């Protein structure tokens, strides 16, 4: 478990604040996303977790162990339990795939037999048995990242940190890497922390997420909740154009799962049952870990606001009223069924 309390970091040379008042908890087995725009401090926060960078205030504990207090040798020992992969793979270009994966074990002076066994096992896991003696420059981006994942797993870490690990890959390769990460997460129960600016990575792979804005946590929670609630930080991150909302009536945003074909009947039914016809202003459906989530905006007049919201509340459907792009009145926060 990673517990971060009131974490604060400033750059030593000019004293500008990078991270402030960070509070979050990452449970064992989570796939946790740290998202935000570039410069939001997400990579720095990730590097605080394995002590690659220091922090000035607050506490960051991994399984009860305060990272700030670790001395040189203890820190190295600690890092054995935390694997890390990078945006540009960070492989030794002159070494073969095999040697790259074996490097951490050589540094920790494992026996040749042990190393050999482990490396071959991991090559199997990441599906690169046939590339054992290839050099990284002869591999594709996705294959390189697989090698990096294998290298990160050699010491059987409990936590895997991914720093923009899929940002340099095409969408299809990104998916295959995410599938591999999910597979590893399920197989060995490793906790994964993913830093990314790609929302589809969050949607496809992560169960919890935290949105960072200028070194502060803007929103945090399960990915499902974040996507249902569509907080301002998320909308800013996605950079979506604000739809033009009509001035009259009430604009209601509805987050609704549309997994079953009958789920799509919501508006038809509502209109019929309430005997009221309302315009749909916006609608989109996003995939989220096998679920399909619909986000719709409808416009309701003053007379019907109450019956409509009541109708939605009764069915435990998330809604909120939109006013000039700000979230004002929130509906029931219970997750969708």
């Amino acid at each position: 478990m990673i517990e971060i309390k009131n974490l604060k970091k400033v750059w030593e040379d000019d004293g500008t604040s990078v991270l402030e008042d960070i509070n979050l908890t990452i449970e064992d087995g989570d796939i946790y996303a740290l998202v935000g725009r570039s410069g939001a401090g997400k990579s720095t926060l990730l590097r605080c977790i394995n002590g690659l960078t220091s922090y000035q205030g607050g506490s960051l504990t991994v399984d009860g162990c305060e990272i700030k207090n670790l001395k040189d040798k203890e820190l190295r020992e600690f890092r054995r339990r935390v694997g890390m992969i990078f945006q540009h793979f960070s492989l030794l270009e002159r070494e073969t795939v095999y040697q790259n994966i074996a490097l951490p074990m050589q540094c920790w002076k494992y026996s040749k037999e042990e190393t050999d066994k482990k490396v071959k096992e991991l090559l199997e896991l990441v599906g690169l048995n046939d590339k054992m003696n290839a050099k990284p420059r002869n591999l594709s981006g996705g294959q390189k990242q697989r090698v990096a994942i294998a290298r990160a797993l050699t010491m059987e870490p409990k936590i895997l940190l991914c720093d923009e690990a899929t940002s340099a890959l095409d969408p299809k390769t990104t998916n295959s890497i995410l599938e591999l990460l999910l597979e590893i997460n399920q197989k060995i129960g490793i906790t994964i922390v993913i830093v990314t600016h790609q929302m589809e990575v969050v949607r496809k792979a992560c169960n919890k997420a935290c949105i960072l804005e200028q070194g502060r946590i803007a929103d945090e929670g399960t990915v499902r909740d974040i996507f249902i609630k569509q907080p301002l930080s998320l909308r800013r991150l996605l950079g979506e154009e604000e739809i033009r909302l009509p001035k009259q009536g009430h604009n209601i945003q509805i987050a609704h799962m549309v997994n079953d074909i009958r789920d799509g009947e919501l508006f038809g039914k509502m209109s019929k049952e309430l005997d009221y016809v309302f315009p749909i202003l916006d609608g989109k459906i996003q995939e989220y870990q096998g679920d399909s989530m619909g986000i719709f905006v409808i416009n309701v007049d003053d007379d019907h606001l109450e019956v409509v919201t009541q109708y939605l509340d009764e069915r435990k459907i998330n809604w909120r009223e939109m006013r000039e792009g700000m979230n004002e009145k929130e509906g029931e926060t219970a997750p969708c069924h």
Partner: protein
Amino acid sequence: MSLKNFTFAQICQMIIVPAFFDTLKMLLISGILSTVFGFVFGVILTVTEKGGLYENVVVNRILDFIVNTIRSFPFIILMVSIIPFTRLIVGSSIGDTAALVPLTVACTPFMARIFQNSFKEVDPALIEAAQSFGASKWQIVFKVMLKESVPSIISGLCLAIINLLGATAMAGAVGAGGLGAVALTYGYQNFNQEIMYSICVILIILVAIIQYFGDWIYKKLK
């Protein structure tokens, strides 16, 4: 006795061939010594740099200053100005053993810069990756930085060795043996163009061989 009494083949055998081996000996020994010292200083310069593995600005500045100072001496001036030091170490300032001292002193800072520059080119992300799996600082230097920069070091060494060859010839002017001394004393001062130009040809061939060999290793390792 004049050299006129001998054929060119005899001169070759008597003077040029031993001088060639003297040059090779100076080149090899001072080359090895300066590579070793250069490596040590190169590593120190790299790790003590700001943001380096053992950040130490004072050590870095001092070493940087020494390297710059020695490198700013023309070799021939350096050689005569460190004669007392040479005497202290080898007991004499004449001959090819004595020449090893100034040759090594002159070449070491050059080598140090070559190592430093090669290490600098290693992607910092690689060092971070090595830290992320708990490699020690020395493992990072040897298993990551050194390993990754070998081709670049090789081409740098090749450059330095050719430079050193030039320096051995110059050393001939102030008492060291070798091809340079022969070209100057038997060739230039004796108005014997045959000797002088044949040594030039030998030097050209030597440089070509070193460069070719260096390129070949570079391609193999890259």
